[in-house]
C-alpha cells in the first residue's frame, strides 16, 4: 500500500477509517486496483518511479463531506489533491502532483444548480461535465450558448480553474476570466463565498464579480489554496446566427498587417475566434516537402521566403473570421472587416464561408464539423491521439501539450516557430514546425505557438518527449516566452521561468500558502507552490 509522506501505516489506516465514516465505505478507494484508476493515462512518467501515484481516493457527495474530509486530512497531515471530473488529460488527469496524496474525487458533486437564460449564467458543482451542462440547457430549451474546450467530458469548473480555453467569442474563450463567483472550502474546512456571495441573502452572486475589497478568486486557479465546490459561469446569449469568412494575404510579410487587423476586430468585440492558416505552408505540423526543404540550409531569409511564396501562386497567409449575432450585424461586420483588410493590405482577397442560423437543429448536430464553435460538447479532438494510418505501426498512448504564449506580432510568430524548429533539431528530432507555422488564438489578447509531444506507456520513449518538452521550455524562456499551463511533471520547471526578481511572485505565493494552509495539505507542489514543510520537494 502506498502511504502519504511522513504518515505511518497505522495513522493512515485510522484516517481511512475516518474518511469512511465521512463519505461511506463505497466512496473510499484504497485497494491497489482502485488506486490505479487515479493514474494519469497520459503520464510522461508512466511506470517509472517519478509517476505520480495516489495513496487512496475519497469521493464526497456534498460540500459538508468535503469539509469533513479536509478536517480529517488536516488532523493527520495527509496531502490531498482535489479533482473535478479528472479528465484534465495532458495536464495530469486524475493523478496528484505529489505521490502519496489522497485524491478528493469530486465527480459525485454533479449538480447543475442553476442556469439563467435572462441574466446569462450557470452555477455548477465540480463534477458537472460540459456534456452534463449542455444537456441541462438543451433539454430545457434555454437560450444560452456554452463556450467549451475540446473534450466534452471535462468540467466547466475544473477547466476554468486550470485556465482552460474555448472556441467562440473572446471573453468567453477565457474560461477562468468568464467565471463569476466561487464557493471554496479552505484547508481548515471553512466555507468562503467570493464576491456578492459573501453577502448573506444576496441574489446577485452570479451578477457582480467583485463585491467589495480585494478579489481573491485568482488564488484558486492553477494553485493549492482551497477546494472550489461551486462556481458561476458567464454564458453567452444564444446568438441568432453564425457567419464565417476567409481573408487571404499574398506576401510573407503581410502576416503583421493581418494580425493587426484581426486584433482590431477582436479587441472591438466584432469577431469570434480567428483561425490563422497558411495556404502555401500546408497543414500545421505536416508541412509539404517543398516547405521543409526551405529549412535544409538553416532558417530561410525574408527574401527567400517571399520568393518561395510568389513562386507557388498561393497566398502566404489566411485567417478564418467567425461572427456571432443577429444576421444583420454579422453580415455588416463581415463587410466592414473586408473593407478594413482591403485598405490595410494590398492584394488581400476574400472568400465567403458558412452562414447558419442558431441554435443548430438537432438533426444537423451529429455530422456538424467543429461542434466546439457552437459550444456543443464532443470528443472528436481524440483524433489527435487515435490510431491513424500514419501511426498504425506504433500509436501513441497520449500526448503532452506545450503551448507557448507569445505577443500578437508577426515577428514573435516567426521567431517562436524558428525556436521550435531549432529545439527539435538540438535533440535530433525531426521538426514539425516551419516558417509558415501559424499561431492559435485561444486567448483573444495573446497568441500561442503550440506543440504536441507524444506520451507512451514506455519509459525510453517518454524520456525523449520529456527531454524535448524541457528543452523547449528552456529555449522559450531565453526569448522571454513561457507556457500558460502544464502537467505536474513539468510544473516546477515551467514555473521556474517566471523568475523575475529572484522569483518574487512564487515567493509571495508560498508566503500565502504557509499562512492559508499551514500544514500544507492541499495539492502540495501544484504549479510550483510547495508548502514550507515540503520546499525541498521542488524538482
Amino acid at each position: 500500500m502506498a502511504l502519504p509522506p511522513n504518515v505511518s501505516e497505522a495513522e493512515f489506516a485510522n484516517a481511512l477509517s475516518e474518511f469512511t465514516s465521512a463519505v461511506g465505505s463505497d466512496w473510499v478507494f484504497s485497494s491497489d486496483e482502485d488506486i490505479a484508476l487515479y493514474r494519469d493515462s497520459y503520464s510522461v512518467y508512466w511506470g517509472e518511479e517519478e509517476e505520480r501515484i495516489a495513496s487512496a481516493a475519497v469521493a464526497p457527495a456534498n460540500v459538508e463531506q468535503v469539509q469533513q474530509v479536509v478536517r480529517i486530512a488536516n488532523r493527520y497531515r495527509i496531502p490531498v489533491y482535489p479533482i473535478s471530473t479528472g479528465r484534465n488529460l495532458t495536464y495530469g488527469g486524475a493523478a496528484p502532483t505529489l505521490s502519496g496524496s489522497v485524491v478528493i474525487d469530486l465527480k459525485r458533486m454533479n449538480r447543475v444548480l442553476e442556469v439563467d437564460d435572462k441574466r446569462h449564467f450557470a452555477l455548477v458543482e465540480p463534477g458537472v461535465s460540459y456534456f452534463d451542462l449542455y444537456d441541462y440547457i438543451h433539454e430545457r430549451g434555454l437560450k444560452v450558448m456554452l463556450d467549451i474546450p475540446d473534450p466534452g467530458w471535462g468540467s466547466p469548473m475544473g477547466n476554468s480553474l486550470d485556465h482552460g480555453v474555448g472556441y467562440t467569442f473572446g471573453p468567453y474563450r477565457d474560461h477562468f476570466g468568464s467565471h463569476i463567483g466561487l464557493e471554496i472550502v479552505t484547508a481548515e474546512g471553512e466555507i468562503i463565498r467570493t464576491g456578492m456571495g459573501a453577502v448573506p441573502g444576496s441574489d446577485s452572486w452570479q451578477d457582480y464579480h467583485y463585491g467589495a475589497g480585494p478579489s481573491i478568486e485568482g488564488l484558486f486557479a492553477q494553485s493549492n489554496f482551497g477546494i472550489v465546490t461551486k462556481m458561476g459561469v458567464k454564458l453567452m446569449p444564444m446568438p441568432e446566427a453564425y457567419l464565417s469568412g476567409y481573408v487571404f494575404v499574398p506576401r510573407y510579410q503581410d502576416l503583421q498587417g493581418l494580425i493587426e487587423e484581426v486584433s482590431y476586430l477582436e479587441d472591438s468585440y466584432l469577431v469570434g475566434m480567428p483561425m490563422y492558416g497558411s495556404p502555401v505552408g500546408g497543414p500545421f505540423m505536416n508541412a509539404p516537402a517543398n516547405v521543409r526543404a526551405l529549412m535544409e540550409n538553416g532558417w530561410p531569409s525574408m527574401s527567400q521566403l517571399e520568393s518561395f511564396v510568389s513562386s507557388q501562386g498561393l497566398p502566404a497567409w489566411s485567417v478564418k473570421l467567425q461572427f456571432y449575432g443577429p444576421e444583420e450585424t454579422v453580415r455588416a461586420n463581415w463587410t466592414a472587416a473586408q473593407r478594413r483588410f482591403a485598405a490595410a493590405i494590398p492584394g488581400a482577397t476574400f472568400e465567403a464561408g458558412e452562414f447558419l442560423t442558431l441554435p443548430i437543429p438537432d438533426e444537423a448536430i451529429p455530422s456538424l464539423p467543429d461542434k466546439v464553435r457552437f459550444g456543443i460538447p464532443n470528443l472528436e479532438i481524440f483524433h489527435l491521439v487515435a490510431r491513424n494510418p500514419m501511426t498504425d505501426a506504433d500509436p501513441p498512448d497520449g500526448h503532452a501539450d506545450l503551448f507557448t504564449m507569445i505577443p500578437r506580432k508577426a515577428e514573435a510568430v516567426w521567431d517562436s516557430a524558428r525556436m521550435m524548429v531549432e529545439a527539435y533539431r538540438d535533440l535530433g528530432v525531426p521538426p514539425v514546425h516551419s516558417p509558415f507555422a501559424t499561431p492559435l488564438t485561444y486567448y483573444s489578447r495573446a497568441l500561442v505557438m503550440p506543440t504536441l509531444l507524444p506520451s507512451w506507456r514506455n519509459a525510453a520513449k517518454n524520456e525523449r518527449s520529456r527531454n524535448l518538452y524541457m528543452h523547449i521550455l528552456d529555449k522559450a524562456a531565453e526569448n522571454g516566452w513561457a507556457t500558460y499551463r502544464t502537467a505536474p511533471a513539468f510544473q516546477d520547471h515551467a514555473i521556474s521561468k517566471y523568475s523575475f526578481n529572484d522569483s518574487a511572485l512564487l515567493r509571495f505565493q508560498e508566503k500565502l500558502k504557509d499562512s492559508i494552509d499551514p500544514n500544507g495539505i492541499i495539492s502540495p507542489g501544484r504549479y510550483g507552490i510547495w508548502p514550507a514543510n515540503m520546499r525541498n520537494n521542488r524538482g
Partner: protein
Amino acid sequence: MKTSICLSLVLAGLSSLALAQDLNPEQQHGKQVFDKWCAPCHGTEVVASELLGMGALPLPGTAALGVKYKGDLPAVLEERTDLQAIYIRTVVRNGLFGMPISRKTEVSDSDLDAIIAYLTRPR
C-alpha cells in the same frame, strides 16, 4: 471506399434500432451507459474537422479500430460479436492507447457490468 463506409453505417444504424426493443433491462442500462461514455468516440457518426485539417472520418475510436482491424473485424464496437467481458473490463479500467482510464465514480462497477451485458449479448 466512401460508399462502403456509408452503407455499413446505415446498416449499423438499422441493426441497433431493431435490437433496442429486444434488450433486457441490464442490457438497456448498458446501452444508456455506452451512449453516454463510449459512443462519443465509438459511435457511428462521420464528421469532418477544419480545426484538425481533416476530411470526413468516423469518430476517433471507430476510426482507430478501422485502421487497426482493416476490415477483419467491425470498426463499430456495437457491431462486434466477439467481445469478451474480461477484455471490455480491462480496456475500460486500464485505458488503451489514447483511450484513458475510466474511474468508478464515472462508470461504476454495475455500469460496467451493464456495458458488458449489452456488448456481449447473444445475437
